[in-house]
């Protein structure tokens, strides 16, 4: 008797659960059959009225029906949940190709980038980064560097003179003297900065440009030591092996003085327009510090010596980024500057 009631109930409930078209109709089916006041619960209540010998079997059957319906319900329920989640996720599509809102990050000037890089490189080798004034005394810019008044070497450096008797430094070399005055020996410094030459501006000439001066003073510094630092410097800049050559060059503040050439990175030697067909690019004037310069800085040349070099940062930036017109650098043109 109860078996047939349960069986009939089970098939009716199963049909309803399976046919539920929405979470709501599923829920009402659950309430109707599996709820606290549902059909199965009321059968359960009547269970006590059965004779004891039938009760156990009936209870077993009831539980089986209940478990069957519950698992049917759970399966159906999770199908609805999954469908709902899928629908929500599908609806939440976004267009990933739209531009990101907010202000774009700006950029640093290429001369800043190269300065920071070289400062890091030299700091790692124990060099201090030193600044000097852009307006200099004639003494620091020339006399202290073994370029007395009426020295023909002054021709090479067209100078802006100021009405207060000072001048705009024509190179970063005066910082050599200032650093020696400040720190004494031993000394390892670099001095990047802005320098000025009284020249007309065109695609390859500027009256304002950047140099990086370097100097090492210690006991028995040799040409071989200088070469080690110069080669390392160029390899750090170009991030590859470079071939260098050293040849005589005249600069009054060094003796001996050198021009350091780098084998053309564009053609590798056979000659191209960048190296003017020579296979070599002149990059780095350098030399052993002249004893007179050491004396200007208050250092005894019998005790100490050293090397110094001057790197044209503007030229280097142009080489590295293939910039064909020096005027871009001071143009303030964001179409140019944003490329870095």
């Amino acid at each position, binding site marked *: 008797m109860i078996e047939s009631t349960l069986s009939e109930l089970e098939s009716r409930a199963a049909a309803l659960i399976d046919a539920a078209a929405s979470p709501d109709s599923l829920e009402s089916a659950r309430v109707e059959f599996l709820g606290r006041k549902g059909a199965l619960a009321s059968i359960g209540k009547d269970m006590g009225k059965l004779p004891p010998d039938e009760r156990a079997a009936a209870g077993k059957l009831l539980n089986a029906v209940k478990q069957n319906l519950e698992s049917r319900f759970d399966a159906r329920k999770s199908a609805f949940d999954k469908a709902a989640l899928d629908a929500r996720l599908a609806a939440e599509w976004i267009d990933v190709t739209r531009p990101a809102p907010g202000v774009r990050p700006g*950029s640093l000037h290429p001369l800043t980038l190269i300065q920071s890089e070289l400062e890091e490189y030299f700091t790692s080798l124990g060099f201090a980064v030193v600044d000097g004034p852009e307006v200099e005394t004639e003494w620091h810019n020339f006399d202290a560097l073994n370029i007395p008044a009426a020295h023909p070497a002054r021709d090479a450096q067209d100078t802006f003179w*100021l009405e207060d008797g000072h001048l705009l430094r024509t190179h970063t070399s005066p910082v050599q003297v200032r650093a020696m005055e400040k720190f004494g020996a031993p000394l390892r410094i670099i001095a990047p900065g802005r320098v000025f030459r009284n020249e007309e501006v065109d695609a390859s000439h500027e*009256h304002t440009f950047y140099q990086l001066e370097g100097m090492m003073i210690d006991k028995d510094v*040799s*040409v071989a030591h200088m070469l080690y630092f110069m080669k390392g410097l160029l390899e750090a800049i170009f991030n590859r092996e470079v071939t260098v050559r050293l040849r005589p060059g005249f600069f009054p503040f060094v003796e*001996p003085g050198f021009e350091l050439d780098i084998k053309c990175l564009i053609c590798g030697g056979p000659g191209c327009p960048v190296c003017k067909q020579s296979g070599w690019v002149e990059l780095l004037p350098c030399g052993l510090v002249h004893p007179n310069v050491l004396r200007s800085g208050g250092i005894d040349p019998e005790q100490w010596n050293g090397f110094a070099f001057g790197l044209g940062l503007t030229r280097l930036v142009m080489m590295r980024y293939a910039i064909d017109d020096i005027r871009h650098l*001071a143009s303030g043109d964001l179409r140019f500057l944003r490329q870095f």
Partner: protein
Amino acid sequence: MKFSYNWLSELLYGAPADPAELTHLITMKTAECEGVVPFAPWLAQVVAARVIEVAPIEGSHNVVAQVDAGPVHGRKQVVCGAPNCRIGITTAYVPAGVSLGDKQILKAVIGGVESDGMLASAAELAINRDHSGIIEIEAAPGAPLPGLSPDYVIEVDNKSLTHRPDLWGHFGMARELAAITGAKLKDPVNLSLLPSGDPLYTVDIEDHSLAPRYSALVFENVTVQPSPLWLQARLEAAGMNSINNIVDVTNFIAAELAEPMHAFDADKLNGTTISVRRAKSGEPYDALNGETYTLEPRHLVIADAGGAIALAGVIGGAGSAINDQTTRIVLESANFEATGIRRTSSEMKLRTDASMRFEKAQDPNNTVRALARAVELLAIVSPGIRLRGGLIDNFKAPPAPPPIALPMEWLVRKLGRPIEAAEVRAILESLEFGVSEPTPGVFSVTVPSWRATKDITIKDDLLEEVGRMVGYGSIPPVPPLKPVQRPWVNHERLFHHDIRQAVAAQGFTETYNYSFVSDSMALRFGFEPASHIRVSNPISVEQSLMRISLLPGIHKNIVDNARYSGEFRLFEIGNEIHKREGGALPHEIPHLMAAIHTKGDGTAAFHELKRLAECLMPGCDVIPTPVGQASSLQGAFSPAVAGQASSPAYEHPARAAVITWRGERTGRIFELHPLLVESGRASILDLDLEVLFKLGPAPKRYQPLRRFPSSSFDLSVVASLRTLAGELGSQISSAAGSNCESVEFLYSYQGQPLPDDKQSLSYRITVSAPDHTLSSEELTAIRASIIEALKSAGYDLRG
């Protein structure tokens, strides 16, 4: 300096390397060569030809000539336009197929007449500048042009010769090549040609420190005429013009021996004393170049009884110049002190071949060598010329420099590679240094006179001689073995880099502007030009003044970029340069200037800059400046405005603020005055990085977190339109008492139901206590005390 390869070769025994190799050797061991170019290579193919027939061409100024061009070319018919093309002369024949530079000579029909080749002028052959007619020479038909052959010109960078007086002549360079290649040097000078006997002139040198030596010779029976072509070609190769035989010889010797000379017309000199003296104050001087100069005692002159006849070492005088009529000359070969010559030539803007050599400090021993060379050359170019009297020579030799001690062990340490003493000695001797070894291991080196004037004075100079000759390529790079020392840290520079990074991260692009401004740029912003440091020698007005603000440059960036873009952000970190009293160097103050240009109403841009300021200076105060009078800015700016206490003239008078941080004024934020920006609006942040760096980073210290929960409530306050949100917030904060955690401005509202002259400002107040959770009674009490304070200050509250 241009060097002729043929000329150098003639000064050496044994053939030197080929021109390209020689150029490379000079670059690697002596001085930088800028290049090597062929000189008149066609001379290998041009031959002498005799004109045997000339016939006019109807309707043309040309003639048709039959020439005998020798056994190889035979008889040729050539059309020629030269006025001197006549029967019997021997001239230069350029066969068809030969190129003269970029001009190729072809068989052609000219005016209906066949022309096979060309008869050439010296200018067409590029051996001088004479194109008045075809050249006339004496040579057998078919022979090469006598004394003329193809050459190469090696150009050496003058800057790399600054320290080498001897390399301003071919002989000096030949000596280098002898040392480099092992060839033997051939001295062109024969001192035995100098005459003995009494000189016709006496030389009076006022100050031997200005003119160590003055030598001269007198010649008579002089014929002034064009030089032979070989001499003209030599000068042309060395980059000089041919003038006449006498001047050409002096220029030739200058280019060969580096000794500048000058020929006076002896018949135009007064008296028999030549003085080398300081000019008299205001002494007039007519120079060869047609200019008249007024001299001062700082200038050195050569004078006769009648006054200055030459500006020593720079330029000869017009009154004593030689010309076609000249028959007697005084040939000067002197030595002058370098800096005096350089000062005079710079001052007069007269950079002559002579002054360029003298300013490098020439060898006083060279004067008589040059005269001996002149005796030989003048006899060739002016046949019949005769010496008169003995050598004129006034010389007070400067003390010989002491020998230089050169310790081998020092040399090796400085070079960084081993080298044998014997090799060092060989190198120095090949360059004609005297080497002895009084102490073992230490050379005593005497310097030859042509290197002793300035060039070589200390052992470091000898290091260079040895180093360049062994070849710097032989030195390996070696890392130094030195104690590690922690380098000094440039915190200020690192600080600037940090600021750059932070500002760029906020969307600003870095620019580099010039340190110069023009007067008109300065005036445009109300900066007094007189308060700038002025450049004495600007190239253009754009570079007249040193900037005292980054603003003119940044303003230019704004205007320029507004042509391409509506909204952009940029910044610069650079030095302001301010005058200082008492001859001290100027005060260079690093500043950051950041700018936003927008097409909007400018409010957001202003506040974005305020946020940038807060990124750099957390918790800084932005204090409005008193609203200025807009009427002060009509049309052009008056410089006086800048001096007033109110906002500078370039600021929008109602949109400007001062920034203070930890008790210091650090900068300003302002919108540029609308009259300065037509394309939109531009806001500027200007920070004094010197002050900012001195303040250092804000100290950081941990505060215990609040253990009890905080509570928040919102209030909307009705206030007049220009009530400052910041001030109102402070009032709320102080009314909230010690339990106030924060007062956050939310938004403002204007419009219905508020009257037109009111706005509502909404705040969120967060409160908590350090030792318990605030009860609802406590919260109500705080809220009530805020409301009461606001009401008593005259504000209403919105529900």
